C-alpha cells in the first residue's frame, strides 16, 4: 500500500510539472506569434506609486503621464509597449539583469545614473519641492528644516537632496504615499518629492489637500529620461525617434494638459 502511495505522489508531481511546463510553452508561442506579425513588443518597468506620473487605477491598470507618453512614443516608433509594475528600489537592478528592456518611472537623469545606464532624450522637466503640514510657519526652504525629520522615497533624487543638507534627518520610504501618510499623522515634518507628485498630493487628493502645503518654488532643475541598459543603442535610437515625432506633433503638450494641469 505504501509503495502505491509513493508512486501516486510521484505521478502527481510529474503531472504538475508537465502542466506547468506546457503553460510556459503556450506563453513562448504567444511571444513568437507577436514577433511573427512584425510588431516588436518591449517590456518597460515602472513603479506605479508615483501619481500622476505612474499609478494603478481602480481597474488595476497602470496609468499616468509616463504610461500615455511612452505608448504614444512607441506608436510613432512602430513598436508596442508592455508595462510591468516594479518596486522602485530594485527597478534598476532588474534592468541590468534584463528582466525588462527599459524603465520609465519619472527617472531624473543624473550623472551617477548615467555612469551605470543609458538614457533617452529628456522628455519632461521637473524639480524637487518641499511639502510641509499647513500649520507649519516660517519655513521658506529646506535649510529652515534643520533638526526636523523629512521623508522621501528610498533612492530618489529627493532623498539625495535631503542628505545634502546637514542637520536634517532623512527617513526613506518604500513608497512616497507612505511618507505622506506618516506626515499626515505627524511622525515626520516634511516630504521632498518631484513637482508633479507634490502637486497631486498637496493640491488634488481630498484627504490631504487641507493638511499640506508646498513650500516655495522647486529647488532643483531636473529632466526625466527613459532608462536603458548600457549600450542598448539600437533600442535607444528607436525610442528617440519616437520622442522626436511626439514633440513635433505636440502630443506631449496634450498629455501634459491631461495629466499635469
Amino acid at each position, binding site marked *: 500500500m505504501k509503495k502505491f502511495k509513493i508512486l501516486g505522489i510521484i505521478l502527481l508531481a510529474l503531472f504538475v510539472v508537465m502542466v506547468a511546463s506546457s503553460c510556459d510553452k503556450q506563453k513562448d508561442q504567444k511571444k513568437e506569434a507577436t514577433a511573427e506579425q512584425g510588431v516588436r513588443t518591449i517590456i518597460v518597468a515602472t513603479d506605479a506609486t508615483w501619481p500622476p506620473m505612474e499609478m494603478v487605477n481602480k481597474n488595476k491598470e497602470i496609468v499616468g503621464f509616463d504610461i500615455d507618453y511612452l505608448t504614444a512614443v512607441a506608436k510613432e516608433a512602430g513598436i508596442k509597449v508592455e508595462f510591468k509594475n516594479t518596486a522602485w*528600489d530594485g527597478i534598476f537592478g532588474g534592468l541590468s539583469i534584463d528582466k525588462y528592456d527599459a524603465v520609465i518611472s519619472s527617472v531624473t537623469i543624473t550623472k551617477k545614473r548615467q555612469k551605470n545606464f543609458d538614457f533617452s532624450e529628456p522628455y519632461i522637466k521637473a524639480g524637487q519641492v518641499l511639502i510641509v503640514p499647513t500649520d507649519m510657519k516660517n519655513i521658506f526652504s529646506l535649510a529652515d528644516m534643520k533638526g526636523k525629520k523629512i521623508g522621501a522615497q*528610498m533612492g530618489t533624487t529627493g532623498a539625495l537632496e535631503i542628505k545634502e543638507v546637514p542637520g536634517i534627518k532623512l527617513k526613506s520610504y518604500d513608497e512616497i504615499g507612505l511618507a505622506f501618510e506618516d506626515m499626515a499623522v505627524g511622525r515626520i515634518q516634511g516630504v521632498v518629492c518631484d513637482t508633479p507628485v507634490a502637486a497631486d498630493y498637496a493640491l488634488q487628493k481630498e484627504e490631504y489637500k487641507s493638511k499640506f502645503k508646498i513650500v516655495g518654488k522647486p529647488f532643483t532643475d531636473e529632466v526625466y529620461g527613459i532608462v536603458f541598459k548600457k549600450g542598448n543603442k539600437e533600442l535607444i535610437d528607436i525610442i528617440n525617434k519616437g520622442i522626436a515625432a511626439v514633440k513635433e506633433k505636440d502630443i506631449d503638450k496634450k498629455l501634459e494638459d491631461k495629466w499635469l494641469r
Partner: protein
Amino acid sequence: MVEIKKQADDTTKHVTIDVGDGVAIPSKKDRGLFTAWRVAFFGAIAIIAGLVISSPDPYWDILKFVPDGILVTFQVTVESILLALLIGLFTGLGRISKNPLINGIASLYVEVIRGIPLLVQLFYLYFALGRIVNMPPMTSAILAMSICYGAYMGEIFRAGIQSIPDGQMEAARSLGMSSSQAMFHVILPQAFKTILPPVGNEFVALLKDSSLVSILAVSDLLRRGREFAAESFDYFETYTMVALIYLLITLFLSKLISIMEDRIGIENE
C-alpha cells in the same frame, strides 16, 4: 511551528519533534550539523573578509554603511523577544486555564494572530492604527513583532507546561502549595528545560523576521542595505553582504543557545 510531545509514561522514550523557522541549533551529538555550523560560520567570515580585502569598493563601503542597521536589528529582536516571552507566558497559562473566559481570550488571541501574516500586522499597527494611536515606528515594530511571536510563544509555553506529568502538580498541591505557587515553583522551572530549545528557535526566527520591519522605514540591517543598493546600483554586492551578515548573526546566536542548553543540561537523546 513547534510541537512538543511527551508520552505521559516516562518509561517509553519521549519524542521531540522540532521543526522551526530558525536555523537548527547545533549540538555536539549531531556530528553533521556541528560540522555544517563550523563550515558555514567560518566560511561566512572568510568570504566577508576576502571580499572586503580584494575589492574594498564597494564591499568596504557597504560594511561601513550598515552597522547602525545591525544595532537596530538587534534592538528590535531583543526587545521583541523579551516582550513576547512575557506575553507568551500569560497566553500559555491562559490556554490551560480552567476559567472559560480566560481560556477563551487566550485561545482567541492565538487563533487570530497566527492567522494574520506578520507583514500585514506590521502595516496594520503602523499605518492603519496610525490615525488613532500615533506610535513611533520603532515602538510599532517591536509591539507588532512581540504580539505576533507572543502567540507562538504561548503555544510553546502551553506544550511545555503540559509536558510535565500531572503527578508533579498533585504532589506540590498536597504539600500545601497554592496552585499558582505550584505552577511558578514546581511546574514552570521543569517546563523551562523543555521549552528552551523551541524558544531559542523562535529567537533566531524572530531575528530573521525582523527584516520585515524595514517596510516601516525602520533603519534595520536590510533597510540600510536597500538604501545603499538603491543609490549605488550595486545590488549583487550589497545583498551578498547583507545575507552574509544575517547568516553570521543567526549562526552566532544558535551557537549561544546550544551552549546555554548544554549548561542547563538538556539531554538530546
